[in-house]
C-alpha cells in the first residue's frame, strides 16, 4: 500500500567509516500502520539488478539498528507511524557516482490482514542526491 512512497529518493547517501565508504543507506518512508519491528517479515534490496545478501542489510528505526535476523525477535522496539526507517546496505565502496536503480521489496505481517502485506518500490537514485 502506498508503495510509491517507500524509497525516499532524495535521502540516499554513502556511509563512510575512517574516510572510506563502507556502504550506503536510504530512507524507507513511514509505514501505513505502526507496529513492532519484529513484524517486518522480510526485506529485499536490489541494486542495479543485483540482490543484496540479507546479512549485508541493516534496519534502523527509533534510534536503534538491527540486523534482519535480530529484528525477527525484537519485541520491544516499535516502528511508529510517521517515522521513516533507515536501511543500510553494507557494500565496499558504497554507491558509485551516477544513477542506479534501487529496488525494495518489503513484507509486513499486519494483524488485521490475513496475508503478508507486500510493498514494492523501485527508483533511480544517486548517492548524495
Amino acid at each position, binding site marked *: 500500500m502506498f508503495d510509491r512512497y517507500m524509497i525516499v529518493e532524495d535521502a540516499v547517501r554513502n556511509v563512510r567509516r575512517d574516510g572510506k565508504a563502507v556502504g550506503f543507506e536510504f530512507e524507507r518512508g513511514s509505514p501505513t500502520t505502526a*507496529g513492532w519491528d519484529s*513484524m517486518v517479515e522480510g526485506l529485499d534490496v536490489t541494486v542495479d539488478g543485483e540482490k543484496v545478501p540479507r546479512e549485508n542489510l541493516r534496519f534502523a528505526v527509533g534510534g536503534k539498528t538491527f540486523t534482519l535476523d535480530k529484528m525477527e525477535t525484537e519485541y520491544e522496539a516499535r516502528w511508529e507511524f510517521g517515522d521513516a526507517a533507515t536501511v543500510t546496505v553494507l557494500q565496499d565502496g558504497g554507491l558509485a557516482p551516477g544513477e542506479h536503480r534501487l529496488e525494495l521489496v518489503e513484507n509486513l505481517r499486519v494483524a488485521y490482514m490475513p496475508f503478508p502485506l507486500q510493498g514494492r518500490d523501485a527508483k533511480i537514485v544517486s548517492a548524495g542526491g
Partner: protein
Amino acid sequence: MSLEQCIAAAAAAGARGIESIAGTDDAGFPRLPDAFYDQWRGWMDKYGTTLTAHDAMLDTKKCKGRLLTDEECMVEFERDLRQARRSLGCKVVRVLCMVSPRSWPRPCRSPSATTSRWVSRCTRRTISTTRGSCGTSKRPSASARSTTVSSPTWESSRSACPAWRADAWSARWDAEDPGLRLRSVRIGPAVRVHHLRGPQDGRKRRGRRVAEQCRHSVYTNPKRLTEFMPYIFHIHAKFYEMLDDGTEYGIPYDKIIPALKAGTTRAIRRASTRATGTSRMRSRWTASSRSGGSTLCSGGCWRRRGERDVRSLHDCRRRGSQRPA
C-alpha cells in the same frame, strides 16, 4: 496532521465521538506516560469531544512463524482494557475480527461481515458466557457493507497477484469512473480462480486469502443490521475514499443510517413493551437452558431452543429462518 489536529478537525466537522487507535496514533504505546493521558483528557475538554472507543489492535502476528497464543492475547487484551477504562475513561473496546474469541472475557467485536459464521460463533459464546449481560454486543464496521473494493484493499491485493495480472487490473481500475467501480468487486473471485489454476506455491495460497478478504468484506445488506440491534451500541464508521463532493462512494451510508434508525425504533419499542424491561430482554435472547430462549445458529440465523443447529448460511437462507418476533 498531528493527533491534536485530527481531533480538532473531527470536532469542527461535528463528529464529537472520538475512537482512539492507540497502537497507531499514540507514539510510544503501550508504554505511555501519565502526561499523555492528561494531555488526552485536555484535548477532549478543549474540543468538546468524548472518547467513545479504544481500538485494541492485538498484534497477533508479533512473532514470526506463529500467532500469539490465547494466553498471550489475553495479557495484551487486559492491558488494552486497563488503558481504555482507567486511563482514557471509555467503556468500549474494539477488537479485530482476526483475534480468537477465546481470548476475550467480555468482548466487543468488529465483525467484517455481520452474517459470517465467525460472528455467529462469537455472539453465541458471548451470550452464553455473560448470560445476556450488558457486555454482549456487536460492533459492526461500516466497511462490512461497502459496495466496492476500496483502493487500499486493492493496492494490497496487487501484491498477491502476478505482475502482469495486477498491471492489467490496475489499468482497468484507473480507467474506470468511480461510479462504475462496482465492477471491481469481481476481483475477489477472479483472483481466486486465477490462483486455483496457478502454480502450487505460497503465492497461490496468499492470493486465495486476498480473494477471501475482498469477498467477505465487500457487502452485507445493511438491512440485516436491524436483526442485531439489541447488541449494537457503537458503530465504527469508515471513510475509504471520498469524492470531491464529500461522498463516500464505497460504503452506502444512505442505506446504513436508515437501517440503524429503523432498528433503533424496533429495539426501543420492544424494550418498552416488555413488562420488566431489559431483564426480560436478556432472558429472551440468552442462549441458556431456560425454556423459550433463542440463540444464533452457526450459520447466522435465529433459532429457538431445541431446534437443530444449522451448519451453513445456505441452509439458514433455505429455511428462511428469522429472529423470533
